[in-house]
């Protein structure tokens, strides 16, 4: 038997063919493995639940108590303006202690207290009438909205009463200054939330599969020992690792094309205001960066069970913190600095930039350069560790 030729003697075309064959092998393996396909679905559904849970929902059925010391038509009128769906009355209380007890038990979230002489004070218009609001803010969103909406209701009622009183006093309706708020929403004029959320889902899906699948593929070869076979074959570590990345890029491009042309565009009408070619080009680059991260992480694990851990420890933080869930600017500085190293943070700008803002290469060159640099560093680091481990 003739010993295999050392790799450096092989021609370029032969090396390329080897890479092509290996990529084909990776793709076939990926398609045949049910568990991995299920794994994508799993992370996708889990992520959907997390996304649903973090949604800041509007105020609904906030149960409020009333302590009305005035008992006039005016006070009753004010109470009657706290309406469903935001508010739901939970009864009257005679003592503040009773209200506190109900709030402690969580059977009500707000107490509205109307002082004695409320109606009279308003009509006199000399001193302001003050109503007290006690709000349970142990759920910050509910508490904030309950108090904000109450303030709005009270302000409107007060202004109406003031107008009536001024008119009764025979004041001529004079023109008064004021600032009117006019909004325009660019890039998404109807404020269609689905545009943002579906693009987010797509980018998340790309991220999850690009990190996990190459990692799982490499770990499985390590676990089953087939990696040894590859290493004794005339393939360099690069030729073993790069096809895994290449296969992932192919799968990602295919998946995103199906997602965009099959779901985002026809179902939700998500526009592509920039160049789709650029979008898919950067997606390929992003898949490369993520696959590099996945392979690097795979060199730290030995068993497939640990890939699940990998998911919790790398993919989850990347998805939660890169700017899809919470706005980056509200995070502490050290965390923002750490997130700079997440390729997703930069890919978000590219994705939204091209699809919704209609940005081109000129606006996005920074982000694209960072993704390329991160990808190169991650892949090289993974390759070096892989070589040292098994070379």
């Amino acid at each position: 038997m003739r010993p295999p030729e050392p790799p450096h003697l092989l021609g370029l075309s032969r090396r390329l063919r080897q890479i092509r064959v290996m990529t084909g092998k990776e793709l076939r393996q990926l398609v045949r493995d049910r568990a991995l396909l299920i794994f994508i679905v799993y992370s996708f559904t889990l992520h959907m639940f997390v996304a649903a849970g973090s949604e800041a929902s509007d105020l609904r059925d906030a149960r409020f108590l009333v302590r009305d010391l005035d008992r006039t038509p005016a006070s009753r009128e004010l109470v009657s303006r706290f309406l469903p769906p935001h508010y739901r009355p939970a009864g009257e209380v005679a003592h503040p202690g009773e209200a506190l007890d109900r709030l402690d038990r969580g059977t009500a979230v707000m107490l509205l207290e109307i002082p004695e002489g409320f109606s009279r004070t308003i009509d006199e218009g000399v001193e302001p009438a003050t109503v007290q609001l006690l709000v349970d803010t142990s759920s910050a969103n509910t508490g904030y909205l309950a108090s904000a909406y109450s303030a709005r209701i009270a302000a409107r009622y007060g202004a109406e009463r003031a107008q009536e009183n001024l008119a009764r006093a025979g004041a001529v309706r004079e023109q008064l200054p004021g600032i009117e708020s006019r909004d325009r929403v660019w890039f998404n004029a109807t404020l269609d939330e689905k545009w943002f959320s579906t693009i987010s889902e797509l980018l998340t899906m790309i991220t999850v599969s690009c990190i996990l699948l190459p990692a799982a593929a490499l770990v499985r070869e390590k676990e089953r020992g087939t990696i040894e076979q590859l290493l004794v074959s005339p393939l360099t570590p690069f030729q073993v690792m790069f096809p895994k990345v290449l296969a992932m890029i192919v799968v990602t491009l295919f998946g995103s094309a199906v997602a965009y042309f099959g779901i985002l565009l026809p179902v939700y009408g998500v526009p592509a205001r920039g160049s789709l070619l650029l979008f898919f080009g950067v997606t390929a680059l992003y898949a490369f960066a993520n696959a590099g991260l996945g392979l690097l992480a795979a060199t730290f694990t030995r068993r497939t069970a640990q890939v699940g851990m990998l998911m919790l420890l790398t993919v989850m933080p990347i998805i939660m913190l890169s700017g899809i869930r919470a706005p980056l600017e509200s995070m502490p500085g050290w965390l923002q600095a750490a997130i700079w190293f997440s390729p997703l943070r930069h890919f978000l700008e590219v994705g939204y930039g091209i699809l919704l803002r209609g940005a081109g290469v000129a606006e996005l060159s920074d982000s694209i350069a960072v993704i390329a640099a991160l990808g190169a560093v991650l892949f090289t680091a993974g390759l070096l560790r892989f070589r040292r481990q098994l070379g």
Partner: protein
Amino acid sequence: MNARRVIAVAWKEAREIWRDRLYFGLAFALPVILMIVYCYGLVQDVENAPFAILDHDRSTLSRDYARRFLESRYFDFKGYAADGREAERLLVDARVRMVLVVPPGFERDLREGRPVAVQTIFDGTNTTPIRTLRGYVESIHRALGAELRADRLARTRGLAPERAEVLLQPLRVETRYLYNREVRALWAIAPSMIMFILMMTSPLLTALSIVREKETGAIYNIYSATITRAEYLLGKLLPNSVVSFLNILVLFVLATQWFGAPFEGSFRLFAIASLGFVLCTGCLGLLVSLLAKSQQAALMISVICGVVVALNFSGMTTPPQAMPPSLHATAQLFPAMAFRNVVLGTFLKGLDARLLWKDVAYFLLYAALAFALCATLFRKRTKA
């Protein structure tokens, strides 16, 4: 039940936890990482939103108007845009989330008592913060408008400004925030996250420790030994529950020291309830181990079920008082809602045992029932 055999299993389990570096790291590092990731990732306080102003008026009043946004902690001023083209570029480059457009004649119109319209252009790509931002902008506009109106009325009628203010708005609302005085989402989320994370990790630890023995085959020693099913399960449950309890203590320190959440209640009560809770979640892990054959399956089942239960049946997404009866009844099947009640009660509300003893009793009853169920379903004989 033979205590010596239980202790023997528990002691062996404890040594395994200690020796397996990966498991040890997993057991203690995972909750901390999840806590940090989720707390920062789920808090959606809109703060420091970058914005620019396109000032067509360039007057004293328009600068005074801008100052109100500059001083707010909700906004982060990125500078004036020279013209419409620059404003557009700032938005396309995603360097600002909104641009305020002050119209020409802003000062003149307001001084002469005419209303003016200020346009806010939002970047609509991320729709989530827009509603909140819009509310902030409107409230600043409202406040400035009210001031200007009062000024005007005071001048035309010769009234004191305070008097004019009352004439225009005779109603004032005094709001007191109970439990979370600064209405910080983080203060409410950090304690809830203790519940959320433990709902995932605590069943996971117990489930993995049994399924691992199934995978390696070590469990056949148990099958053939004299130890009873309940003794074996209890020996598995106790050390893992201790690990989970230690995790709660670590997360408690993180929540209070790192995230600054206030703790108003009794620590002893919190600790007792936590012990009951980790027993419950440990028993859920035992249930998972009955279903799972591989560690990977155990991991998936525990994490998925943990997330689903913690999100839907704990009161985090729908507050218990707003739950429909069917949902409320389903939520009773899991210890998540009761523990969230305890956590929020002891952290923010400062409740005492008078209002929380029921939850503690619920945990003990729940753990006893769940354990009995596992012991009955656990088979020492594998099906052929």
